[in-house]
């Protein structure tokens, strides 16, 4: 058993090659009430609790696995104002080694991707994990823009990944199944549930929270990017009419309603 200490194994070789960046989005908790202010042009942050975007949390957890099994170090990054720092600290408490905040309002996907790409290029991250989409704007655009900006390989909707040396085997979700892909580092993976399972997610413990306070959180200025798009307003969903209740003894009525009124069967 002790031979491991003297002969470098294949696994140890991969250590040197992996530099991991996890992109985190700071989003309203799912249960938040969605309201708008200033004539439906601004998102109302009043009373909103923020969390790590769930898809990003799956990715961070997978990154921790790489750290523990293959020795990578993990940087988390987000684009945001000082208000997002608690979310970064939480990622550090879960187990990331250091954090970078690009100091800017995340105005749109292209802008955010350019900021992260700039940092990734300078620091030479070769494995970038990020959620397939954020649960606020649900755009799903940042991962693809980021990969394209860096000219890295890219796998979207990733539900499984193994890395050996430079070789990456990734599984993505497709409509009605999954697809196994072969590619190489450097790569951007847009992950989702499946890259790890719910039970693998970690709740930060007290030691993690204490340590997170000491871990480096670097603030970098944003680079200048010409915006591709702007949000000009919001609309709430139209009010729904009340649910029509049908008696369990009158199934025919339900079938009739679905056929003649809703016209879906």
């Amino acid at each position: 058993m002790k031979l491991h200490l003297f002969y470098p194994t294949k696994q140890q070789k991969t250590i040197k090659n992996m530099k991991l960046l996890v992109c985190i989005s700071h989003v309203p908790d799912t249960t938040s009430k969605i309201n708008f202010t200033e004539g439906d042009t601004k998102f109302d942050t009043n009373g909103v609790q923020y969390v790590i975007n769930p898809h990003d949390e799956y990715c961070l957890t997978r990154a921790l696995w790489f750290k523990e099994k293959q020795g990578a170090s993990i940087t988390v990054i987000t684009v945001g104002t000082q208000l997002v720092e608690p979310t970064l600290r939480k990622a550090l408490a879960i187990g990331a080694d250091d954090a970078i905040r690009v100091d800017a309002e995340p105005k749109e996907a292209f802008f955010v991707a350019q900021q992260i790409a700039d940092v990734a290029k300078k620091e030479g991250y070769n494995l970038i994990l990020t959620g397939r989409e954020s649960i606020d704007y649900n755009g799903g655009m940042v991962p693809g823009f980021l990969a394209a900006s860096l000219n890295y390989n890219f796998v979207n909707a990733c539900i499984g990944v193994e890395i050996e040396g430079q070789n990456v085997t990734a599984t993505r979700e497709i409509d009605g199944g999954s697809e196994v892909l072969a590619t190489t580092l450097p790569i951007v993976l847009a992950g989702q549930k499946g890259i790890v399972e719910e039970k693998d997610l970690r709740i930060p413990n007290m030691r993690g929270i204490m340590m997170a306070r000491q871990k480096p959180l670097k603030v970098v200025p944003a680079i200048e990017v010409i915006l591709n798009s702007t949000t000009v307003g919001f609309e709430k969903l139209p009010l729904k009419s009340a649910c029509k209740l049908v008696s369990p003894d009158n199934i025919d009525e339900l079938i009739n309603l679905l056929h003649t009124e809703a016209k879906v069967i």
Partner: protein
Amino acid sequence: MSVLVFAETSEGQYKKVAFEATSYGAKVAELLQTNLVALSINAKDASQLSTYGATKILNVKNEKLTSFNAKAFAEVVSQVAKSEAATVVIIDSSSNGLYLAPLVAFKLQAALASNVVGIPSTTNPFVVKRKAFSNKAFCLTALSTSVKVIGLAKNAFGIFENTVETTLADFNPALSDADFGVSSKQIIKTSGKVSIADADIVVSAGRGLKGPENWGMIEELAQVLGAATACSKPVSDLDWRDHAEHVGQTGKQVAANLYIAIGISGAIQHLAGINSSKVKVVINTDPEAPFFKAADYGIVGDAFEVVPKLVEKLKIFKQNNA
């Protein structure tokens, strides 16, 4: 100037989303007073798109593109967009469409709007309505680049027949090895079932079913309706059902015509995944279950009594309406 739609195929046959994207493209082209060009890759019968308003159809025949490859496909779409001087490029929201759209937009230095639910409300500025906040609101986005890419949300526009005169031609893209940095090794299909993404009707069940052994009636109901089966998150976490069936915020998104929820209370995370479905039916013993607030039709009752009756009655209905 033109509008370009990427009409997606699977094993040479057009997907339903291809007809929806083409119908949508025809409407956008009309709005911009220009023509609709449709592009497909390895389609067996590309002329079908003329039924939905494409005045020019380009088909790429290339063995290397038999299976979907995001980067190579993005290269093809952007080459066609440039040669046709497209100002708007439309891509569907299938798993391949979502993968492809940002790569195409980047190549064309175009703004991308994903999850778009309707035609542009104005064209100057170019404003589109998109789903946001997990289907709890819409966001109005103005795109300021000269070329725009639209990711059309699934089942948001509909399919409209609009037969037009069409020219049909082949397109030969220039591709290099660099476009094939990611390669497909294996496709694993969930066998013999309607997929949640393609289904018009989805039958979904939750913890109210008490155990995986009780799913027989759910599958039977799905079979009668030609529906896909799905489940809530707790059911998938408990391994009662395959994880691929999990619908909700962190699972699959459902934008079906009819969504039937059985024994699902309707947690906000679940509703976030199914809100885009047109008609929702809930069957639950608890009249206080939050799903009743989100549903169009509901039955307060025991699934073990209601579902078998529903199956039986639907069989009769299907026979009479066959």
